[in-house]
């Protein structure tokens, strides 16, 4: 069945004009085929003898289907030129690399005179851009979103390609999970083996890698005797109803705030090449979300905060973090962060600073250790506190003073 056009897939053989045994010559009309355009006569391109008719009249067959078997005049079979995939058929769709036409070399440009009609200055060279301020790539949608929710775009890390800040990044920075309600955490068994790369995960990844890329961390660790604080706490809790009970974490936060007030170089931001201090200590509390990921809402001006008020604020922030109800300002205003992984049993935490902050304090598990007190050996419950700080903003000396102050505050809890 010959192809008579690119858009012809098949044809209906209507009539044979030859029969087996007939002698045919090149150019003879041997059959009639019905196509969309009407009946078309089919010619033979060989001199041969018709051996066998393979397709009966009124049968539709695809283009290329053999219609008859021919024998050469001398008796051997004739192989008719069956439609083979032609080179002219569109080659398999390779990607077309089209080079833009090389712009023909312009005629030697002469000095372009201004036109007089209305007053026109001579075209001055374009004003030179002030120090090529690397304008951050932020999508218009992200700008609009940030303005609506009062997000300081400088804080938002872009996760688009080339570091572009997208709406998702702003959403993420606001702590609101990409979907309005927190996505239902799939039951543990059904949780996908490889953690699904949620927008949050990308945001954390971007922030952490930016931190490691840009911030020269230095690390200090200090083991602190927590016995006095814990005993004070247990006494206090025993005398109050459960609703007013404190957890030792609250004491740690208060102590950090107090110490940070004494070592201001650890409390603030590194922005545009300089340290920007903060007159309040707003402590970011790292809360791990059971579905994966974390949030670090800030408790505002903790230094002077009453311990019970601090406890309530901490309880409330934890609950809202779990439910994804944190306000954007909470997520963006911490001046120093605390990461406490004591419940997991880990003894020491060397954390990664959350840019643009300049310090992060880590607390490990409370463990009982042999401890020398007034040259007597005792069993004491102790905790390892670590400091990771930005060496652009502070030096080891100040970091050490901070940890020492922290230990002092924890040794007289009643003053917290």
């Amino acid at each position, binding site marked *: 069945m010959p192809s008579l056009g690119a858009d012809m897939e098949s044809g209906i053989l209507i009539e044979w004009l030859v029969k087996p045994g007939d002698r045919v010559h090149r150019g003879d009309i041997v059959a009639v085929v019905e196509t969309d355009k009407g009946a078309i006569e089919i010619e033979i391109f060989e001199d041969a003898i018709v051996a066998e008719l393979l397709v009966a009249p009124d049968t539709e067959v695809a283009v290329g289907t053999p219609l008859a078997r021919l024998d050469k005049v001398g008796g051997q079979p004739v192989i008719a030129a069956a439609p083979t995939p032609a080179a002219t058929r569109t080659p398999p769709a390779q990607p077309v690399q089209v080079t833009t*036409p090389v*712009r*023909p070399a*312009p*005629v*030697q*440009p*002469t000095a*372009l*005179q*201004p*036109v*007089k*009609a*209305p*007053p*026109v*200055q001579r*075209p*001055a060279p*374009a*004003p030179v*851009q002030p120090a090529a301020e690397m*304008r951050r*790539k*932020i*999508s*218009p949608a992200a*700008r*609009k979103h940030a303005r609506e929710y009062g997000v300081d775009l400088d804080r938002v890390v872009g996760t688009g390609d080339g570091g*572009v800040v997208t709406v998702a990044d702003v959403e993420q920075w606001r702590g609101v999970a990409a979907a309005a309600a927190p996505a239902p955490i799939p039951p543990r068994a059904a949780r996908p083996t490889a953690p699904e790369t949620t927008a949050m995960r990308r945001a954390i990844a971007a922030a952490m890698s930016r931190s490691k890329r840009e911030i020269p961390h230095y690390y200090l660790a200090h083991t602190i005797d927590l016995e006095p604080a814990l005993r004070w706490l247990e006494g206090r809790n025993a005398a109050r109803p459960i609703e007013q009970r404190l957890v030792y974490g609250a004491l740690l936060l208060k102590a950090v705030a107090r110490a940070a007030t004494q070592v201001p170089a650890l409390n603030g931001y590194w922005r545009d090449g300089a340290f920007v201090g903060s007159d309040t200590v707003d402590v970011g509390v790292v809360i791990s979300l059971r579905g994966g990921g974390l949030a670090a809402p800030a408790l505002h001006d903790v230094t002077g905060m009453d311990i019970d008020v601090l406890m309530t604020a901490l309880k409330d922030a934890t609950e809202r973090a779990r439910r994804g109800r944190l306000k954007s300002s909470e997520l963006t205003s911490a001046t120093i962060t605390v990461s406490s992984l004591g419940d997991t049993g880990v003894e020491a935490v060397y954390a990664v600073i959350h840019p643009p902050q300049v310090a992060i304090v880590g607390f490990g598990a409370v463990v009982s250790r042999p401890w020398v007190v007034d040259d007597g050996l005792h069993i004491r419950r102790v905790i390892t506190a670590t400091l990771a700080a930005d060496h652009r903003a502070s030096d080891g000396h100040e970091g050490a003073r901070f940890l020492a102050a922290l230990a002092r505050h924890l040794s007289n809890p009643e003053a917290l």
Partner: protein
Amino acid sequence: MTTITYREAMRQAIRAALQRDPRVFLMGEDVGRYGGSFAVSKGLLAEFGEERIRDTPLSESAFVGAGIGAALGGMRPIVEIMTVNFSLLALDQIVNNAATLCHMSGGQFNVPVVIRMATGGGRQLAAQHSHSLEGWYAHVPGLRVVAPATIEDAFGMLPSALEKPDPVLIFEHALLYNMKGELPDGAGPTDLDRAVIRRPGRDLTLLTYGGSLFKSLEAAATLANDGIEAEVIDLRTLRPLDDETIMGSVSRTRRVLIVDEGWKSGSISAEISARIMEQAFYDLDAPVARLCSAEVPIPYAAHLERAAIPQVENIVSYARQLVARNV
């Protein structure tokens, strides 16, 4: 420095070309005895004779096709189509022959023809005589499309075009012929590939060409009074577009208003806006704005025509809105 009209500058350019190169000749309706419908070729017949200043019958397809054929035959014809409105009768010759022959023949035949035509509205000639269709031609690979606005370009673009081995279409806005301006002594061929910043600025970029250039410059002067510094760019070439100069300006001012007498839909202004979106997306502080003719057949009545075609005050108000917006 001599003060001459745009028309005079173009005539001198044609005259200089005819004197310099025997292959050059001018062909078009009433270019000879009548002196040209816009009087551009007045006096050339007497100086160069009927062989080289050829009046044609009203057969746009034939004489434009003949110009293309003569270019194939080794001449350097300047074909004058009275206005872009009549060029529609020669579209087949321009698009299917002039623009296509070189590529389709595998590089064997190039077509060094120059086709000039008047364009634009504003003279109460009503719909059939007021088109601005240069954008159509800028759509076709194989053509070069330029729009001289200044006196120097009116004088300098033709010699450059005659040097090109490919078809060059020159669009002269009909309202510019009477404009007077300075032509520096010794002015020569001007570049066909570059746009030019006619007025540097800071707060927004006005991208325009041809007849709209001077409205834009006037608008920029008004805007300067209330502290808005508009950078005015004369595109000069619609194909190829000078992306480099356009994006350079956009990255500095971050706000763009394109002024074009063509209609908006499927226009050169739409193409430029798309390129800015593709190449300078993150430099934008506001969506690209466009001020074009109203999407209506251009009406006869003066007040209607004026309302249909971009005017200085429209440019000023569009610019003010643009500067106020931020996204």
